[in-house]
């Protein structure tokens, strides 16, 4: 009895330690973001004059919170200017809906395509024998470090020749190219650690490489595929430079991040809108993260990963 009690006590203590530690870390991690979250409901003048915590230290100021920033970002800014006849004209700036569509059109294939290609390649590196295998693998690792900026000009030249500039295909391929080293590297490390006996027994049953890959490897690699999917999605979603170069800034193709950056104004005078913008653009990646969460479950490979 006493033993069980002390065991329970021990459990309780470790529970407190675990959750307490976790809470502390989460708190530290979240405070900066939370501060900007509060700021996103404040006016520019408030933001630059008082700290965001003012709403806690001086609760009366809570009434100054408003949705103006969100309104500006989501529905477009209102521009006021004088017409030649002298009267004041107002015009709504672009809203985010079009660029939201564009971003989705860019990001979905730009996430799935590299995963597909990298998964095939990772399987090839891990379970197939062919000349040049090691050399090619080293190349993949080496290319991890190559900054994509050096590729912009040569690739753009090729695109110009091929007439690909400004097409979605152009940007999918570009993101695929720039994301492939990491994708191949991460997936190789996972796929190569899958238990050898599973694959060998499938071979003995007469399955081809293609069948093994589709039926066995892909399902077993879901956690790795899901985690890379998240990263690639985030990278593409938050990318500005690659989209700007290969897709351009025309409204019919410009992505969310470009639109957001334009909102800031030529001299950066409206940077406070980025507070609201950051939370609006964060929404989709978080949905992706939550929906892929369920693939990180225990037991998918229980007892079959080699130590």
């Amino acid at each position, binding site marked *: 009895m006493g033993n069980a009690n002390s065991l329970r006590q021990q459990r309780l203590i470790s529970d407190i330690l675990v959750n307490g*530690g*976790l809470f502390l*870390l*989460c708190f530290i*991690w*979240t405070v*900066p*973001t939370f*501060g*900007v979250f509060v700021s996103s409901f404040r006016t520019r003048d408030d933001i630059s004059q008082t700290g*965001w*915590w003012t709403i806690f230290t001086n609760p009366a100021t809570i009434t100054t919170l408003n949705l103006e920033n969100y309104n500006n970002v989501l529905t477009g800014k209102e521009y006021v200017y004088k017409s030649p006849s002298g009267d004041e004209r107002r015009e709504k700036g672009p809203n985010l809906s079009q660029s939201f*569509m564009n971003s989705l*059109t860019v990001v*979905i*294939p730009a996430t799935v395509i590299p995963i597909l290609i990298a998964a*095939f*390649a990772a399987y*090839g590196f*891990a379970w*197939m024998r062919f000349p040049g295998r*090691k050399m090619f*693998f080293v190349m*993949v690792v080496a*290319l*991890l*470090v*190559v*900054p994509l*900026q*050096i*590729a912009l000009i*040569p690739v753009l030249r090729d695109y110009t020749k091929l007439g690909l500039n400004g097409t*979605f295909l152009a940007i999918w391929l570009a993101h*695929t190219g720039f994301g*492939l*080293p990491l994708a191949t*590297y*991460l997936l190789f*490390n996972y796929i190569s*650690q899958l238990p050898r006996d599973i694959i060998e027994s499938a071979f003995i049953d*007469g399955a081809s*490489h*293609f069948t093994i890959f589709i039926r066995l490897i892909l399902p077993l690699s879901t*956690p790795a595929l899901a*985690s890379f999917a998240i*990263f690639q999605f*985030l990278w593409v979603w938050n990318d*500005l430079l690659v989209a700007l170069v290969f897709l351009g800034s025309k409204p*019919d193709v410009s992505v969310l*991040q470009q639109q*957001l950056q334009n909102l800031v104004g030529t001299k950066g005078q409206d*940077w406070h809108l980025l507070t609201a*913008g*950051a939370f609006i653009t*964060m929404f989709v990646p*978080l949905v992706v993260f*939550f929906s892929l*969460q369920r693939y990180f479950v225990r037991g998918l490979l*229980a007892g079959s990963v080699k130590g």
Partner: protein
Amino acid sequence: MVHGSEKEQPHGPLEWIMANGGRFAISLFVPIVTFVVMWQVFIWLRDSHASKPIIAIVAIIWGVGGVALLFVVSNWVVEQLPMKWMKVLQPYVFVGPALAILAWYLAIPTVRSLILSFYDASGINFIGLDNYVFAFTDKAMLESFRNNILWMVVGTSLSVIFGLLIAVLADRSKFETIAKSLIFLPMAISFVGAGVIWRFVYFYKPPGQEQIGLLNAIVTAFGGQPLGWLTIRPWNNFLLIIILIWLQTGFAMVLLSAALKGVPGELMEAARIDGATEIQIFFWIIIPCIQGTIVTVSTTILIATLKIFDIVFVMTNGLYGTEVMASQQYKQMFKFQHFGRGSAVAIILLIAVIPVMIYNLKQFRQREA
């Protein structure tokens, strides 16, 4: 899967074609039809004025489906070949597309950079190793080397340690999903957004004025004088590295957490029954089990720190002794328009990663064994 052609081996390619004429025709026909259909859709996509969501959906199906088809069709074609040929060719069906794209988008540009790195700003005059001499003598570059080492050591180790810690803690907590989401949150924020967030942490206002930066607000609340955090050498480097850790811990956590799920539960239970403490379990069971993932995550973050650019560029522009290599590379290339120097820095980055490459190659060989 049994391949019919194995049984009666034809004697030469010509005979084989004669014998398998129909199949040969089909194996040519299928890829051609696939290609033509894909091309037609591409033309339609490029010129169509259909409503935006429709184009988007067709584009997505076309793009993703096209790549899937590429693999299916090329694999199908290879499987029509005799066993001998198939064995040789099939690996390239798997790795070929990746290698081709890597070559086009990264490898060939790298070679081009290597060549450019021996030329002057205009890219016309060959100047030998001058750009490299510059890179190893320039004050800002030397500073970058030092800082990059700092980033690599501190940034990588702390990101991985925190990522592992949080993954392990979350694994045992009822609040796993919410905790992981909160740590992951920074990753979902664009760099521009992250810049705004950290601006409100390090912001400086002269004494006497209300502080809007979190750190200075805390300092002044305790009676201290506000500091211009990002201008204080050399500590400002650590303040910038904190931003990286804040961002990259989520990355480490996601991967390590996925690996943790693969640690057999029975093994841990068995150890617990044997009276092992949680700390012992952590070091004796968990760490060895997920060692491969730790190496992968560390390598990836290490390389990310080597390429670190946005944080420095947005927060300090490399001033006050915070310059890093990738920021130098970007500046040389696009701001100073010196492609030679920019390329040389890129090549130095590549050379710097050789030890990592060797280590990974070793791992690669081990797995083969």
